[in-house]
């Protein structure tokens, strides 16, 4: 075997040439075969050392096969996609019932997650980010962990408790030892950061306590507001990131988070902005644009389904993602989403809020074009897919 390898390595340029020549030679036979299949064919031809006659046959067979699996004109691709996702989906709900009582079940995976994506909900219930690090941090565990700690959103109220004395017009902010240890923070740094937040009054420091003496003329309500402002002050981190954990993935350190803030994280120089991502598809489409959102939908759906060992052809997911994003923003398959965009009053009425849609369309004098599926079912005409699409026109 090693000898053979050596041989093939010797003259790759020559072989590439012949392949290229062959490709050009048969170019007119290509028809509508896509690039990938076309290239694969010649790889096979090369490996099997086929004669030109055989290559011709191979291309013809491949074309036949390819045309067979193409979606035909008038095929109900949407319905097939819906069924292809829906059928295994019912299996999923049935199976989760068997797991009832198991702790692991969450909205993070399973049918609820699919629903969340397809409905285009604005808030992901279990939002999480996967942060890839730049070359400096990705192999340095200590630095990665330090960064992970650094981006966690910490507010004063998370690590301190406050005692107000309205008689003396003072407030006492005391750090909670365990909370600080939990988050691996520095006491002095935190105290100084809290101190920065205090805008009014004199501050005395006594060990872990900060005692604020507010000016006497300040009203009680204003004192309370002031204290609340201090308590809500972000001391460090990126807002929205609740927890982080450093894991190893393919030989590099990666940070997984609970909570998401893609825009702010991407601004940090420590991260690899090309790979860092979140599972909140709406956020991706907001930050990176609708095409990124479309990709994210496909990827999230695919991930959720494969996690549950459901095999759905990727093209169905692509179709769904296209449908959700073609307007330029993510719209779910709910009455406030793409259902509202339907031009047919019957289709809207058949989905939800029947009477409302009927009244609204009557008010605007809408015309039912009878193009969709439900509309024709209601009226009792053949649905305009498959055999119902074709019409004969008499020759004059």
């Amino acid at each position, binding site marked *: 075997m090693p000898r053979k390898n050596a041989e093939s390595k010797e003259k790759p340029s020559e072989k590439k040439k012949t392949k290229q020549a062959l490709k050009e030679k048969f170019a007119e036979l290509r028809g509508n075969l896509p690039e990938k299949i076309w290239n694969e064919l010649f790889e096979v031809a090369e490996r099997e050392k086929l004669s030109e006659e055989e290559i011709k046959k191979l291309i013809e067979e491949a074309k036949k096969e390819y045309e067979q699996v193409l979606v035909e004109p008038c095929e109900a691709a949407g*319905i097939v996609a819906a069924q292809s996702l829906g059928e295994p989906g019912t299996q999923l709900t049935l199976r989760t019932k068997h797991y009832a009582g198991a702790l692991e079940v969450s909205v993070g995976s399973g049918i609820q997650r699919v629903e969340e994506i397809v409905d285009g909900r604005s808030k992901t219930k279990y939002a999480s980010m996967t942060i890839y690090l730049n070359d400096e941090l990705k192999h340095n565990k200590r630095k990665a962990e330090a960064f992970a700690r650094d981006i966690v959103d910490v507010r004063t109220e998370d690590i301190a408790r406050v005692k107000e004395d309205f008689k003396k017009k003072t407030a006492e902010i005391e750090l909670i030892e365990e909370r600080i240890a939990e988050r691996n923070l520095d006491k002095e740094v935190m105290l100084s950061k809290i101190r920065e937040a205090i805008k009014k009054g004199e501050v005395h420091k006594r060990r872990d306590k900060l005692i604020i003496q507010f000016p006497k003329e300040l009203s009680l309500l204003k004192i309370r507001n002031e204290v609340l402002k201090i308590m809500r002050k972000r001391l460090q981190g990126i807002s929205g990131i609740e927890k982080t954990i450093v894991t190893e993935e393919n030989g590099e350190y990666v940070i997984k988070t609970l909570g998401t803030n893609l825009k702010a994280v991407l601004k940090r120089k420590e991260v690899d902005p090309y790979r860092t991502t979140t599972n909140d598809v709406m956020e991706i489409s907001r930050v990176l644009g609708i095409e990124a959102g479309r990709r994210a939908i496909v990827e999230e759906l695919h991930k959720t389904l494969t996690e549950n060992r459901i095999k759905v052809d990727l093209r169905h997911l692509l179709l769904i993602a296209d449908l959700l994003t073609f307007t330029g923003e993510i719209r779910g398959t709910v009455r406030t989403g793409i259902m509202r965009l339907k031009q047919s009053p019957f289709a809207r009425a058949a989905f939800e809020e029947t009477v409302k849609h*009927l*009244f609204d369309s009557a008010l605007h004098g809408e015309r039912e074009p009878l193009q969709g599926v439900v509309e024709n079912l209601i009226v*009792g005409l053949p*649905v305009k897919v498959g055999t119902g699409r074709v019409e004969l026109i008499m020759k004059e």
Partner: protein
Amino acid sequence: MAREKAKVYINGKLIGFHPNPEALTKELIEARRNNIIDSQVNIAYHKHTNEIYINCDSGRVQRPLIVVENGKPKLTKEHIEKVKRGELSWQDLVEQGIIEFLDAEEEENALIAEKEEDLTKEHTHLEINPAAILSIITSMIPFLSHNLSGKALHGAKMFKQAVGFGQANFRMRTDTESYLLHYPQKALVKTRTMDLIGLDRRPQIQNFVVAILPYYGFNTLDAVVINKGAIDRCLGRLSYFRTYESTQTRYPGGQKDKFEVPSEETVGYLGEEAYKALGEDGLAEVESYVKGKQVVIGKTSPPRFLEEIAEFGVVRERRREASVVVRKGMDGYVDRVILTQGPQGDTIVKVKVRSDRIPEVGDKFSSRHGQKGVVGAIVPEEDMPFTASGIKPDLILNPHSIPSRMTIGHLLEMLAGKAASMKAEQIDGTPFNDVDQEELEKLLMQHGLRPDGMETFYDGISGRRIEGKVFTGVIAYRRLYHMVAHKIQARARGPVQILTRQPTEGKEKEGGLRFGEMEGETLIGHGASLLLQEKIVEDSDKVIQYVCEKCGIVAVDDKIRNKKYCPVCGGSKVYPVEMSYAFKLLLDELKALCIYPKLNLVDKA
């Protein structure tokens, strides 16, 4: 930190606080054991919430347990001897605090040992018998401890569906529906609970000879094959009774219903044929044959409006038909006619109709281990496989029913049933107390049978020996009350609903099977939209309506004057349009909502 006082609840109502809940609980339980308070009172102390629940209300299930103190059961050998001699009763044991009843709440705080050997110092109670953890029904499944827990559930569920000899006074009863199994048998393999509740005196099973074998594909997917010869010898046969009832109501004004054979002049007369089974008194004769839509109780009611003036100005009373007819698709023999009086002194008639339900393809059978199956074929005796000694099984069960369900109890019962039939004695299969497999094998050996229950079989059709040995045994089977005769239903045309003109729904109304939303989508998925249109319009509620070209509104079709005109513009430029009646109804309803649905007509493509 001083502990808070515990809340004390009686029957869920807070009645006060106690500083020392443990002592209070102990004292109360002691008082119950000393027969100072009733044995039905249960006391439970929940440590984590610091609450004492004392329950003495109704609706709690209690179960008896032997009290254990310091790792020793209070019930001693002397007690048992005394009970045997009749000197002590169950009540005495309860009153002496040897046995006590726990409910679900108090059980939470108890540590119960299954067997006496398991007792430690921590234990508070001892099970009277390990089988006592099961319900009455569940503990009637023999060799239950060898089965999957889920199968116990299935088996117990089907006890309630089994047909048997449920009540000895069945001749006198007038239940709307009742079943009676012919020749029920004692189970060869019994459990002790069966003795306790006397199931052998009200049996619901028959002992089937069962072979575990495929049979030409007729017993795939949980079907079973049944021996025709066995059915002819009354296996699984039953009687089905249905009682029809009618009251002779009295109306204000002195008029009343009358039991009689309605005269031809009666409004709604059903035709001579329908009244064939009736005697002079208008009631069906006992042991006469009646079938669907025939009258079993002839009854007429007075006319609804008093003065119904016939021709020539004569006031004639035309009574209305109010007879009770046999349900559609049912038939049978009149078993009993009962005349009685209602609370208002009205005469009530009950006619009980009996018919046989001989096992047929599609009827449901089940063993006691959740192994239910539907009859897939009834095979003539000569075609059944037979053993070397000439035994033919009553029922053939598919081997695929066994491995995935792991009902080892089923196999053991077959083995035990076989041994019991050779020994001519019932064998005890009480859960957790059953006989060992070795013992059964020994028994089989003693009677000259293979200890593993396997036997050589010959194919009934070809006569060839079946390769390999076949597991055969005797096992209790039950006929369940789901029968094809009560469920079969088909329709090509039939009644429609008034509102939508779509076919009716349900067996009673001779309804169709709904071609629903999901079914329609499958057709669209295949692109078969013309087929779909045929299904939902042509086969359902197709109508031809005339529509005004100008107004786009459904026109009036005046059949009397043979005129079609638009109700809005009065014009007669109307054209026929094919549509579903439901759509026409939708248009009408839109109009009722003050929406003007205008149809734009185009030529049909």
